[in-house]
């Protein structure tokens, strides 16, 4: 079943003084099925974050549409967008974005509190998720009292707690050491195996090799697509490296 459809999305940034126009995305189309695990790769400045912001309804495309469960999120009125975001999407950021003022547990509760859920229900939802992510013992601590890996796992728990349709992650391993990265990717695998759809932007080949599908973006277009199929992580790793090498070579050739 198709969960997300991105159709001919174009994004043009107009600089403050009106003069220069930057075309961050020119014509991006792809679709995501329920239960998919997609990695988006591309060089710096290729438009990955721009795309993710549009999918997250944090930004509007200049042209094109984004359908989540057949609903065009581009047309959701401003007033409803926050509610839409917190009930349908979960976010994991490179720099965790946990709030210093809350304990880990309260940080995880934020989306539920914002949706006006009862405290009892929150506790019930938290328990299995915290267990799954191995953070039960740090729930009462504050973000500045735990490690980066623990913070990111807490952020994942926060993304999961409202049962979103889709998890959007922008370079989730970017601020983690390799051990914590592996850990987190393992957790992503588990979550995905349970049916959670994940869309992740990453620079890390290793991270991308966990995904079922990798999209390569270049100059604002989807340049190439890789399916993992029955490949192992190692084989996938090799394939991604090769594609990236071709991508880079192509650039040299053009120049």
């Amino acid at each position: 079943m198709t969960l997300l459809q991105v159709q001919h999305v174009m994004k043009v940034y107009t600089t403050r003084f009106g003069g220069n126009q930057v075309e961050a995305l020119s014509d991006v189309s792809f679709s995501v099925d329920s239960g998919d695990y997609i990695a988006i790769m591309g060089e710096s400045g290729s438009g990955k974050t721009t795309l993710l912001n549009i999918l997250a309804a944090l930004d509007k495309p200049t042209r094109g549409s984004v359908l989540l469960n057949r609903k065009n999120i581009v047309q959701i009125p401003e007033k409803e967008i926050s509610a839409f975001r917190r009930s349908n999407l979960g976010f994991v950021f490179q720099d965790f974005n946990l709030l210093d003022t809350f304990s880990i547990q309260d940080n995880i509760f934020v989306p539920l509190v914002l949706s006006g859920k009862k405290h009892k229900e929150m506790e019930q939802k938290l328990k299995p998720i915290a267990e799954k992510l191995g953070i039960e013992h740090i729930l009462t601590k504050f973000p500045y009292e735990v490690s980066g890996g623990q913070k990111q796992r807490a952020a994942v728990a926060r993304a999961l707690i409202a049962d979103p349709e889709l998890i959007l992650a922008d370079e989730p391993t970017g601020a983690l050491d390799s051990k914590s990265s592996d850990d987190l990717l393992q957790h992503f695998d588990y979550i995905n195996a349970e049916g959670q759809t994940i869309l992740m932007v990453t620079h890390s080949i290793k991270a991308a090799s966990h995904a079922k599908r990798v999209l390569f973006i270049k100059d604002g277009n989807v340049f190439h697509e890789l399916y993992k199929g029955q490949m192992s992580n190692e084989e996938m790793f090799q394939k991604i490296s090769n594609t990236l090498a071709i991508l880079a070579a192509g650039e040299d050739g053009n120049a």
Partner: protein
Amino acid sequence: MRNSFYLKMAADSIRKNWKMYFPFIISCISTIMMTYIIQALSTNPGLSEIPGGENLKTILSMGYFVLILFSTIFLFYMNSFLMKNRKREFGVYNILGMDKKHIMKMLAYETFYIFVFSMIVGLVAGTILNKVCVLLIRQMMGADVALGFEFSPEAVVWTLSFFIIIFLLILLGNIYQIRLANPIDLLKSGNVGEKEPKTKWFLSILGVLLTGWGYYIGLTLQSPISGMPFAFLAAILIIAGTYLLFTTGSIAVLKILKNNKNYYYQTSHFIPVSGMLYRMKKNAVGLGNITVLSVGVILLLSIAVSLYIVSGNKDGDSQYAGNVISEVRLSEDTDDTGEEVKAKLNELIDQTASETNNTVTGLSSYTYLNLVTLAADDGFEVTKDAYSMLAKQSPASLYLTDQESYNQLTGDNISLDENEVYVHGTGDEYTKKTLSLMDYQFSVNVMEDMEEFSLDNETTSLISDTYYIIVEDIETLRQIEKQQKEIVEGYAASTNVSTQIRLEQDINEQQEIAFGEQLRSNMEKEDMDLVVVDSRTEAASDLQALRSGVLFIVLNLAVLLLLMTVLIIYYKQTSEAYDDKERFSILQKIGLNQMEIKKAIKSQILTVFFLPVIVTGIHILAIFLLMRKLMILVMINQVNLFPISVLIAFLVFLIVYMIIYRITARVYYKIVQ
């Protein structure tokens, strides 16, 4: 590294961090300025010369003490803002290879610069402002005003030494913090919040007790003038209690709210409660500062309004029934019954009248003795304790006259036997059958409708218990005077002849003053031991001078305090807004919309703003009675208007406060966006 290097580096660093230093320097300058002005005014010799000047000085020195206390807290508080931001910079220096000793040295130079700069600007501004005050007062009063201006070296020395101590303490505190911290902590300190504070029940309860004690004194203190130390104590207790309650009490309350899960986990409570708890320690001192300042502003404003009301209403001022009053002290010789003095005086009055072309239309004269005593079981005790500031019991003031004087003055015809007296109390009547006063044992007749003969003492009669007593004859009066002299020595009162002279009705002010002055010089020529010769006009303008002077000082102070309140609120809100900026952007990403953010911000700002106002209101109610008693000094018989003044002051304050609220809320929202 050489000293000049540090000098340059410190100067650079102040310039670079000007945005952060600016509010701190402004605070330093304004506290220095205020301290100087109040100190200069309270040691101003010109002030003693106007009636009530001594009382004014007492009020000022009390204000000075509170000011010192407050300045210290205020500057430390401002410094904590500054240091929080500077620490990261120091961390970078430290990591780049500047050792802590050098950082401290640089910090010392910075502090020194700021000290010198604020001191110079503060003292110059203080001197100018002081002068401006005096000039304006002179203008208001028309030239000859007792409030003379001079540059006060004494005040400079005081201000200088006091602020040297404060700056040293601040520097030591900062050095201590840096010594303790490792570079990583320094680097982090800009963005790592305080640990969640613990609930301190003991201190919370102590806060309640201290405030309660302060309130108790405020509500029960009988005579704030003689009990000035207690009034002081009440002020200090309430201030200390306020800070304790805000620092520990607020945390306790927030913790309780947080532990109530069903309350806490709601959008409109979740964000503000956690936000406030997160930085409550610092927040609390800020709220305490705002509260103490607000109370100060309202009190000062209400005094100013009272003075304004009173000086606009001249009728209430007439202390004298006659146009001119004179008082002459009788000689030490107890056989002197004052007949001679009275006769001489009548002669001189006639002479003066003809010299100044005036006609005397009425003349009344009586002999009286004013004793300060302590009420005892069977009468009144004459003792030196009655003059002590620390006396537990408020003194009773006795006005004694002889029956012949009284009959002359009032046209009554009373006749007393030996050892018999008529007594009338202005507050409660004297209820006992007998009255013992030193060696005398009088039997008492109460005369409720007794004419209160000493007309110029309304002030005292409202502050302490006052009794008017008529004794049989002048000899008794003089005997009492003599016995009293032996007991209280230096404090002894004397028997005076008070004469009120009424002149023609259509007399103008110049003529009245001229008559008074002529009479004075005539009396001086005759070597009479005169206590005072005063005309109604002079007295009224003296009083007016005092009131305008006080009005001015008070208004100045109120404005300065208000300025400081504004500065603190603004500084606090903007610096918090920068802290919260990230928080709200994260929340927005997770799914909080503009409306909800606005609501959360609003409820957070509202608490910060209106908690202090509520506490201020309660404080004002608690010390209202005390203030009213003090205000008798300036408002005399119009003290009934004091509640209106307080109300007006509160409204003015509230309006300014609302404006600050609107502005800072907007600034906060803009930054957070």
